[in-house]
């Protein structure tokens, strides 16, 4: 007998809105509310919102928090000097494989917020506590299951949020991308997202999230499910943990070298030795199918330099063609052609740089 699925505080809202739900990492989450393609277009053209309360906010606080985070993650939090500024990073295991990808917010030298994926949350917290104890860091790691989170995305998203919550406008109006503002009542408004559009990810106490959701619906923001979330992030060139990378994949095999900071030679973050000594990089690039069909994870790819694999694939609603990410032999470049094995047939595809779409528009490719 399987354990029952977890529900976010917005579950009843989703059911009332006609959501079809699915088991996502142990959570009963909406995959769409009728049409995931229409939801996708709403985000690119106007505004849409996602219940991301299944993800976990973690407070990292204490005199040793700064040193702890510089040990724990591959990107360097020393870069964050303005309160509210955030960065994207991987957390590596000692073999240099990715434990999870996450976002870290700086508020003060002893006050940080980390946001991790839903399916890996328990693993991540256990890992963080282990590293804190092993290094005897003076840090308190507090999972915040009392908080809920909504991502409002699209060209009209921020305006809709301010229409629903005028009191937040003053503090959030001037936020630069990848910055957040902590407001009264344990509210975090951050100019971040997983869609390639502008918008806010908003963290509020779980007791307040249903009212926020309803007020955003009243402003015309369209509820969007995990189906649209996947097509949007794929078009935007953003990795999905568990699919594009996992504990057996190092950052330079998943297009994530840019998130690893090696500048400070004295900072021996976990996994650094492994990625410096045992690196087997891959070319992690986009693929665009040149004929009809749909690419999916694990499909084989044939290139002039050897075999590769599709890690994520879908039909792009914005482009009307199948796009995906692939792990390919080093030396393969955007502009090269490849063949993708779809149900026993080899279909031609073009290798592209990522992203495919940014700010509602298809990026020009070679």
């Amino acid at each position, binding site marked *: 007998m399987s354990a029952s699925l977890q529900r976010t505080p917005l579950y009843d809202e989703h059911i009332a809105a006609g959501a079809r739900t699915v088991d996502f990492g142990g959570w009963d989450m909406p995959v*769409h509310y009728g*049409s*995931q393609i229409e939801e996708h277009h709403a985000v690119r053209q106007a505004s849409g919102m996602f219940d991301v309360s299944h993800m976990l906010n973690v407070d990292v606080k204490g005199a040793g928090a700064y040193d702890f985070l510089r040990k724990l993650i591959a990107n360097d939090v020393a870069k964050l000097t303005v309160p509210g500024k955030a960065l994207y990073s991987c957390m590596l295991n000692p073999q240099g494989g990715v434990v999870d990808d996450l976002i870290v917010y700086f508020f003060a030298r002893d006050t940080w917020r980390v946001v991790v994926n839903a399916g890996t949350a328990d693993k991540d917290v256990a890992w963080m506590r282990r590293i804190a104890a092993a290094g005897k860091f003076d840090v308190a790691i507090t999972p915040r299951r009392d908080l809920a989170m909504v991502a409002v995305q699209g060209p009209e998203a921020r305006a809709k949020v301010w229409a629903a919550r005028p009191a937040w406008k003053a503090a959030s109006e001037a936020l630069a991308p990848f910055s957040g503002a902590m407001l009264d009542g344990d509210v975090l408004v951050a100019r971040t997202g997983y869609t390639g559009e502008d918008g806010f990810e908003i963290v509020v106490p779980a007791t307040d999230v249903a009212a926020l959701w309803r007020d955003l619906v009243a402003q015309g923001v369209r509820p969007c499910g995990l*189906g649209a979330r996947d097509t949007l992030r794929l078009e935007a060139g953003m990795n999905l943990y568990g699919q594009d990378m996992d504990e057996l994949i190092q950052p330079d095999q998943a297009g994530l070298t840019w998130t690893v900071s090696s500048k400070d030679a004295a900072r021996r973050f976990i996994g650094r030795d492994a990625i410096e000594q045992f690196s087997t990089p891959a070319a992690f690039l986009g693929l665009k199918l040149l004929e009809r*069909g*749909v690419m999916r994870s694990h499909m084989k790819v044939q290139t002039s330099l050897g075999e590769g694999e599709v890690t994520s694939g879908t*039909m792009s609603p914005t482009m009307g063609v199948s796009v995906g990410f692939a792990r390919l032999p080093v030396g393969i470049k955007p502009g090269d052609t490849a063949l993708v094995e779809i*149900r026993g047939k080899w279909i031609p595809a073009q290798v592209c740089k990522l992203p495919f779409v940014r700010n509602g528009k298809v990026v020009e490719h070679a």
Partner: protein
Amino acid sequence: MSLPTDRKYTSSHEWIKAEGDVFLVGITDNAQDQLGDLVFVGEVDVGAQLNAGEPAGVVESVKAASDIYAPVAGEIVAFNEELESNPALINEKPYDAWIFKIKAKSAADVNGLMDAAAYAAAN
């Protein structure tokens, strides 16, 4: 959407309807609802001689690809080309959007399939 009574149904969620001396085949509202937004319909081999139950084509949604099967033995004589550019027609009008036409080896084979009441009872 109520099940049209002018056609027969299979346990793999195809419908089959006579049109002159051929049969139109599509998928049910139940099937399109389970699949979600369709993004690709194809691999229909015009001219192929199939037995009942053999794969006759593919419908693919954002979620997954699904084979569609020949409800009766016969020759595939047409593919609905409209679905190449607009697969969503199946989501919108599953009982109007035929996918392929089949010239049955024996028209009487259709009699063995489910009528609307039997399909409804089974689903």
